[in-house]
């Protein structure tokens, strides 16, 4: 999971989101992760555009359209490997993928695996 505080989405503060490459998470009002995404090299306005589309009226993703309430992001040039890492960590912790990613199929072709402790059920650092 991203180690950043959740932020509410405010269209008036859109320009505060950097238009750079990076990864982000969209959460519901309770802070559950709905979607894990990235702003890659084909993104016109980077994180700003990718995050905003989950909160706009034309959002094609039914899960984030209904439930998105907050977001957090991380600027990184290693956006693809970080995206894989976040999805893998999410899967290891929840034994499923985020609902929003499943709804639109925004997933890598193959996902790796880390290893959960058989005793604690948590990821072994």
């Amino acid at each position, binding site marked *: 999971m991203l180690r950043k505080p959740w932020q509410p989405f405010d269209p008036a503060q859109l320009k505060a989101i950097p238009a750079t490459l990076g990864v982000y998470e969209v959460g519901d009002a309770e802070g559950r992760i709905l979607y894990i995404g990235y702003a*890659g*090299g*084909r993104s016109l306005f980077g994180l700003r555009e990718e995050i905003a589309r989950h909160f706009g009226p034309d959002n094609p993703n039914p899960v984030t359209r209904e439930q998105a309430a907050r977001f957090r992001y991380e600027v*990184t040039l*290693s*956006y*693809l*490997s*970080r995206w*894989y*890492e976040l999805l*893998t960590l999410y899967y290891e912790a929840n034994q499923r993928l985020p609902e929003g990613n499943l709804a639109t199929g925004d997933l*890598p*072709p*193959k996902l*790796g*695996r*880390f*290893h959960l402790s*058989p005793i604690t059920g948590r990821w*072994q*650092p």
Partner: protein
Amino acid sequence: MDLQPDEQQRMIVQTVRRFIREEIIPLERELDPDAFELPPEEEARLTKKVREMGLYGLDVPAEFGGPGLDTVTLALVFEELSQHRAGLYAPAYGVFGTVGLAQLYRGTEEQRQKYLYPMLRGEKRGFFALTEPSGGSDPARAIQTRAVRDGDDWVITGSKIFISGADRADFGLVYARTDPAKGRQGITCFIVETNTPGFAIRRIVHTLRSAEYATEITLDGVRVPPENVLGEEGQGLDIANEVLTRNRITYSAASLGVAVAAQRMAVDYAQKRETFGAPLSTRQAIQWMLIDNEIEIRSARWLILQAADKADRSTSARDYRFETAIAKAFATEAAFRVVDRAIQIHGGYGVSKDLPLERWFRELRIRRIGEGPTEVQRLIIARQLFSGGYNGSLV
């Protein structure tokens, strides 16, 4: 002595070139610039096509069902295979089925049945784990991962870093110290299954590389049965070096391929782009960059082909390690300089994700370190120079 490719080599190279240009590059226009894998349906379609062409498993010997290409032909092919955006670390996105882990060819028939053949069929994935946090260039001294006997089994404890593909693998080749008193002869290669208790992927190591990210793995009392020792006990580094030395030839050839592609782009752009009323190609400053590129490309190619030819005539990697070290050191350093100059000629576009140059630049930076850094290659060259009986002539 014939310095021209033969008819079969020409045919294979042209086939691969056409495939890259007609199948791979058009797909890349839709993919993220850092993508390192294809959507599954495209991967399946193109793999089928490559199988039909008879080129699947390019580097697999004929006795194991591959085309059995010699090293010279493989070098020529890898120069073509890398000439697209992801080409350095994901040549043709893996649809040619190049597998690595050639160490398994030396395994027992039981090991081949269990690991090698499923890997060649694309059913199992493997990883190669030599480098440790304590170092990778000098594994004979750096390896701290220990394997100790417990009954008939071995129990392995330690960690490995910069390991590609371990999080997706079914098994891996793990090098561990079995006898601390014996130095390089005290290191053994084990086949470790990733579902064994105690095996863990600790993290992804994010690097400059876009393709096939690296991982750090830990082994905490991983129990390995005796039948999973690859080769003889204490001969792990011999097994590793035999393959690593040969791999450096195709590694260098792939680096060269990217340099060729960058030079092609730079020559083309220099003729189209005008500054102060004339094309860049008329400026001597630009011409000299392109000339330096061409000299380095051609020099690298002959060094690689010489190493490949020596490899084809040798029975042991020791016989061509000198030529391979020269080729690897020069080709990777030269390719980096070529791409750097190509970026300079392209100006701002050169560093943008609109073009593949920035990705090649980042990934070529790693090539100067990966598979033995330039300085270690120089060490190998120096050892040979001072080993007595130096003869610098060709004959």
